[in-house]
């Protein structure tokens, strides 16, 4: 019993010493690099940002490193992509972090998917259809026009957790949105030649990008979301689209590249690796170069 009491006292003592608020910067944990990039635009150097996933990692399967728990424990704000993309690794981390500030429902937790309209919402939800997301396709960030609402949601959340900085965040947001408006117009123009082009993708990652550019997605290398390609499916895909005038096969940096390469060779069409996030490929350094890279990769 003494032993328990002692342990308890020690824990309490260490707790009160270490938990004394001393940080000047707002501590923010984000799940993906693009969110960090946006936080950087809005908070500038007023925030300390930790990213859970790497850009070239499969966003569905991020290894939940225990050190993330320590970071979440101290966070003032947790920003997730949402749409069930993080369902496989974030919930247990939040549960173990013992931090009421960032629990779902608290002020310091935001789900960005709620500030954009998700497409491809399935009518029926069954795992027989593979790894589907009941809320709709969560890869909304591949459309640059989804960036402003997301940036606004981030600025609002930052202003809530750090009221003193709200004015500065708003100013930075306005400046960013102004630049974004100009850039978006150039990207819109740049994307024009893509209208109507048929593409095949590996996973349903680029549906928002295709919708924005007017490209038509005619198939996926995966027979069903999250299910690896089978040779039968790939053959069927090639046969079905033999006369569809497929323009290009697109994939991401984290899936195997044999399948896209093989299909591209058999169909005699080019294939490219597209960044689905900032830092997914070296050229996609920030939000601006992400869409530059996306567009220049498919424009040839």
């Amino acid at each position, binding site marked *: 019993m003494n032993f328990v009491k002692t342990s308890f006292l020690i824990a309490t003592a260490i707790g009160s010493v270490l938990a004394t608020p001393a940080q000047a910067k707002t501590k923010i944990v984000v799940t993906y690099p693009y969110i960090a990039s946006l936080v950087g635009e809005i908070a500038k150097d007023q925030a300390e940002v930790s990213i859970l996933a790497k850009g070239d990692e499969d966003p569905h399967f991020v290894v939940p490193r225990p050190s993330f728990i320590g970071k979440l424990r101290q966070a003032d704000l947790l920003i997730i992509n949402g749409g069930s993309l993080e369902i496989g690794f974030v919930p247990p981390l939040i549960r173990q972090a013992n931090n009421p500030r960032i629990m779902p429902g608290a002020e310091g937790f935001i789900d960005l998917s709620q500030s954009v309209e998700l497409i491809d919402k399935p009518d029926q939800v069954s795992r027989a259809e593979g790894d589907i997301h009941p809320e709709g396709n969560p890869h909304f960030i591949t459309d640059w026009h989804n960036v402003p609402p997301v940036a606004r949601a981030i600025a609002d959340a930052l202003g809530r957790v750090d009221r003193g900085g709200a004015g500065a965040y708003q100013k930075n947001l306005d400046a960013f949105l102004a630049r974004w408006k100009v850039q978006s117009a150039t990207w819109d123009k740049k994307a024009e030649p893509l209208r109507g082009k048929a593409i095949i993708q590996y996973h349903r990652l680029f549906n928002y990008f295709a919708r924005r550019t007017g490209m038509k997605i005619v198939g996926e290398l995966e027979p069903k979301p999250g299910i690896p390609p089978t040779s039968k499916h790939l053959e069927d895909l090639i046969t079905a689209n033999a006369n569809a005038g497929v323009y290009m096969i697109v994939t991401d940096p984290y*899936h195997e590249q044999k399948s896209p390469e093989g299909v591209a060779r058999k169909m005699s069409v080019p294939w490219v690796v597209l960044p689905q996030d900032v830092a997914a490929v070296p050229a996609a350094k920030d939000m601006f170069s992400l869409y530059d890279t996306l567009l220049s990769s498919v424009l040839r």
Partner: protein
Amino acid sequence: MVHIAFISALLLAQQRGEPVAAQSPIVPAVANPATATQPKPAPSYDELLQRIEALEKAAEERKPPRAAPSTAGTFTQNRFNPDLSLIADFAVVGTNVDDKTAQRLVVPGFVDPSDRTGKLRGIDFNYLELAFNAAVDPYFDFFSVVTVAPSGIDVEETYVDTRQLPFGFQLRIGKFFSAFGRLNGMHQHVWDFYDQPLVYEAFMGAEGWKNPGVRLSWTAPVDFLLQLNVEVFQGVSDESPLFNATSYGLTAANGTVLSSKDSFVPGMYVAALKTSFDSGDNVFLLGASVMYGHALQTRIENLPTDMAFSAPGTIVYDGELTYKYLLSSYRSITWQSEYLGRVSSGDLALASDGLVHAASKRQGGFYSQLVWRFDEPGRFRVGARFDLLDQNTFTVDGAGQPLDNLLQRYTAMLEFSPTEFSRFRLQYAYDRSRFLDGARKGVQEVLLQMNIAVGPHGAHSF
């Protein structure tokens, strides 16, 4: 808009000298018979407007009553239902020991035949696990796991966690698995092999130590993981071969009654400290845990069966080390090892001589395992594990009892998971720790296990 169009139509009709009511499809003849029979001077705009409104009102009143919106769902609260997952586990087992013999196997000084569970030759239904979770209110989260197995229904865990304690504290109240060691808190379906390491089976029971209790956990505000768990358990369990804070009573051959008093309850305490940090793609996890409580054993190998070993100050300690190297988004190599030791001393009551002897036990063992997730979509894993119980001394009245202290097992597995929700595992084990009637009996075993999960997405911990 409607009014204006209607008025123009009426005016137009009047100008043509036609009876308005007959022409207008929505003005019934009975509504205003006067208009139909007697031509009058053209009415003013306001009059017309009033008339239209009166007609509209009359038409509205004559409409059949609108169906009331369904109230069938008014008090249904489906959306508050907890998340429910079902996990089912089956195996096909082949072994060189028949089921009857298997029930008589012991690990001398560690595992009694009575502790042996499951795993019969042929096709086994191991368990169906029902896992529930939901937020209770803004203050608590609720979790419950109920296991239905051929041996019966067991409430494995049912507890609440606080949501709002400050300074990194969290309180867990209910029945739950202790945070002791690396594996104790893990449910069967996330184990890397079909069964627990030998040393866990010996000290914690086949499924791990779980009991009613309270846990206070504290996470340090640092950029790596530093977590301390302190637990108080009731300490009475017939599921574990170790902790049981109850009294014993024996009547010796010569008529003497040997007995003890019940221990103070709650009588079992645990402290577990864990830390983890990473450097690039290398992730390290280290931990140290200690358990303190009252042990009671009523059967020990090489001793007469009518006995009781009551050791109020029993300590089990654990040191753990996990190293994971992340090869890519899907591939990784994990090396995990743990050492567990047990120190226990107290009274040994023997019915044979009617005496209470001073006795003590020092035991220990470890496992070390390597698991490689080796293919690109991350569906295959291969692993090997070595188990060894290397310390096994039992002393009665200062004299050591001969017990084997080189008890080992070799295990290998190959796993295929079509998705996160289904898994097939082929496992081979060569177990040199079992004894039959005092002689070592090597047990070889091949099994194919199937584990399936349906329901909400089960997130994976590290």
